[in-house]
C-alpha cells in the first residue's frame, strides 16, 4: 500500500514544526522513514543531509520519540535507558539526568510493566534525549499524557527548539499543535498539502466575521455589493443578518470587512472573526483527501463566540 507519495519538506533549527494530517495520512510512516525504521520505495529521508543509517552517532544526532510501546515489561526504566546508553557510549550519569528531566527521577528502578501510558511516553522521551540530540522527532507525544503532562510537553518542546535545535512533532490534536508549533507541514492522503509558518498560512485562511453595528442593514448591502462586484481580496460568500444589530459574513476576513466599513463610515461596536484557526485551515486543506474514501467533510458552523483568534504560536 502506498502510504506516502512524493513528499519533501525541510525543517529549520530554532523552530517547532508541526507535522499534521488526518488519521492514515502517512505521518507515522514518514517519521519512521526519517528514523530508518521504514524503507522508502524510492527517494530518501535525510537528516542533516544523511540517511539515518549513515549517521556516525545516531543517538547523539537525532532523538526519535515513537509510540510508547518499545519496552520490556520486566526491565526497569533505568536499565532500559542504560542499554541504549551502552550502545552510544553514554554513561549512567546522563541516564539519571534524563530520568530527572522527564519527571521520572524516582521511578527509575521500577519495572516498566507497571508504568502508566503517560509514564511510558515520558520514558520514551527520556530515551530520545539521552544523546542530547540536535534534532528531535516526535510522533504524537501528547498521547496518554494528562493535561499537566501535555502542558509540560508543550513547554519542553518550545524550550528545546529555543536552544537552536530542530523539533518536528506530529499531532492530530490541532488545538494543542496550534499552541506549540511555529511552522506546520500538513499532509493528507500521503501528500503534502501545505507547508510554512503557521501565522502566514492562517493569514490567507478565510473566516466568519461577526460585526455588531447600528447600521446593520447598510453593512449587509455593502457586503453583498462587494461579493457581487468583488473589488476586494476575500469577498464574502454569504452575508446574513443575525438579530437587529449583528451581521455575519462568511468566507471573508476581518482585513477585508474592516476597510470596507471604514470607507463607508459605518460605526462598529464590536467585530470578531472566528474559524481563523489551524483547525479551519486544516479542514479546508484536507477535505476529501482522507484515505479510504471517507471524507470527513466540513464540521458544522464554526463557533462564533470568542475573540479574534490569532493562530500564531505564543
Amino acid at each position, binding site marked *: 500500500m502506498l502510504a506516502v507519495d512524493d513528499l519533501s519538506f525541510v525543517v529549520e533549527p530554532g523552530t517547532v514544526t508541526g507535522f499534521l494530517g488526518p488519521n492514515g495520512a502517512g505521518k507515522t510512516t514518514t517519521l519512521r522513514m526519517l528514523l530508518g525504521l*521504514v524503507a522508502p520505495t524510492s527517494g530518501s529521508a535525510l537528516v542533516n543531509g544523511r540517511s539515518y543509517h549513515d549517521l556516525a552517532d*545516531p543517538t547523539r544526532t537525532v532523538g526519535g520519540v515513537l509510540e510508547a510501546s*518499545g519496552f*520490556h515489561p520486566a526491565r526497569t526504566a533505568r536499565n532500559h535507558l542504560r542499554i541504549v546508553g*551502552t*550502545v552510544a557510549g553514554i554513561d549512567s550519569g546522563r541516564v539519571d539526568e534524563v530520568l530527572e528531566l522527564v519527571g521520572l527521577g524516582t521511578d527509575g528502578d521500577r519495572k516498566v510493566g507497571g508504568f502508566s501510558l503517560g509514564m511510558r511516553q515520558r520514558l520514551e522521551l527520556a530515551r530520545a534525549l539521552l544523546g542530547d540530540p540536535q534534532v528531535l522527532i516526535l510522533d504524537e507525544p501528547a498521547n496518554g499524557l494528562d493535561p499537566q503532562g501535555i502542558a509540560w510537553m508543550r513547554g519542553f518542546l518550545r524550550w528545546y527548539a529555543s536552544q537552536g535545535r530542530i523539533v518536528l512533532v506530529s499531532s492530530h490534536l490541532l488545538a494543542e499543535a496550534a499552541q506549540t508549533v511555529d511552522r506546520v507541514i500538513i499532509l493528507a492522503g500521503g501528500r503534502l498539502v501545505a507547508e510554512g509558518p503557521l501565522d502566514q498560512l492562517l493569514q490567507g485562511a478565510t473566516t466568519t466575521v461577526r460585526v455588531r453595528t447600528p447600521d446593520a442593514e447598510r453593512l449587509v448591502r455593502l457586503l453583498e455589493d462587494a461579493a457581487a462586484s468583488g473589488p476586494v481580496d476575500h469577498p464574502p460568500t454569504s452575508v446574513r443578518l443575525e438579530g437587529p444589530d449583528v451581521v455575519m459574513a462568511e468566507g471573508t476576513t476581518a482585513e477585508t470587512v474592516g476597510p470596507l466599513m471604514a470607507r463607508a463610515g459605518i460605526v462598529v461596536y464590536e467585530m470578531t472573526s472566528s474559524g481563523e484557526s489551524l483547525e479551519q485551515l486544516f479542514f479546508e486543506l484536507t477535505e476529501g483527501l482522507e484515505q479510504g474514501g471517507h471524507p470527513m467533510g466540513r464540521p458544522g458552523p464554526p463557533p462564533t463566540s470568542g475573540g479574534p483568534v490569532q493562530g500564531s504560536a505564543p
Partner: protein
Amino acid sequence: MRQVAAELKKFRTIWSTWLLLGITAFLVAALTAVIAFAPHDRGARELLFPMRGTTRWFDSIFSSLTVSLTLALVLGILCMTGEYRHKTITPTYLAQPRRGRVVVSKLLASALGGAVVAVVAGAVALVFGFSVVGAGIGDSSRMLTEYRHVFPGVLAAAILYAVYGVGLGALLKNQVVAIVVGLGVTAILEPIIVAVVPSVGRWLPGQVAQALESVTANANGLNNGITHLVLWWQGGLALLGYGIVLAAAGAFTTLRSDVT
C-alpha cells in the same frame, strides 16, 4: 563491541534469563539424580543405567548435561525474537540502525550466554559428582576423567546451539514459531530423517551437536553406540554454519522489513 555489551546487558536485566539458568540447574540436578539412582540393568538399558561407581556410570550421569543444549537454544531464540515480541526492536534499531551489526552482536552475546548455560549445568553436575564420590560411590579421579570427557563437548555444543537459536529467531522472528520449530526439528523431525535417510539425517542440527559433544568422549570409545555421526569437527562447523547461514538469511529477509 558496545553493541555486544548492550546485548549482554539485555540478558542481565530481565528475569527470564535468570529463570532459564535456574531451570537449567534444576533439570541437570534432577536428570543426574534420576540416571544415577535408577536401578541398573543388565539388559538393553544397561547403556543408560550402568553399575554405580563405574566409568560408564559416571559417563552416563554426566550425559544429563546435554539438556543445556536445549536451554541454550531457547536463550538464543529469545535473544532475537524477544525484541520483536516486546517491540524493543524499535529502540534497538534507533540506537543501531545497521541491523546486520545488531544480529552479529546477538550471535556473539548469545554464544557467551550459551556458554554460561553450559557452565551452570556443568557446575551442578560437578557438585553432584563430588557428592557421590564423597558418599563413597566410585572415586574422584574416575569421576573427573569422565567429566573432562563430557563437559568440553557440551560447552562447545551449547555455545553453537545458542548461535543456531539466534539464526532461527532472525529468520522466523516470531518467538513461539521459532521455539516450536527449534525444538520440533530436533525432537520429532530428526529421528525420522535419521531413520529413513541417515546420510542426510546426520547433518541435522541435533545430530551434528551430538557429534560435537562426543569430541572428547570418542577418545574413550564411549560414543554411546552411535555410529552414524559425522566427525566432531565436522559437527561443530556444521552447527556454526546453521547459525550463521540462518542469521544471514534472516538479516537479508525478515529483519529488513519495516518496523512499524
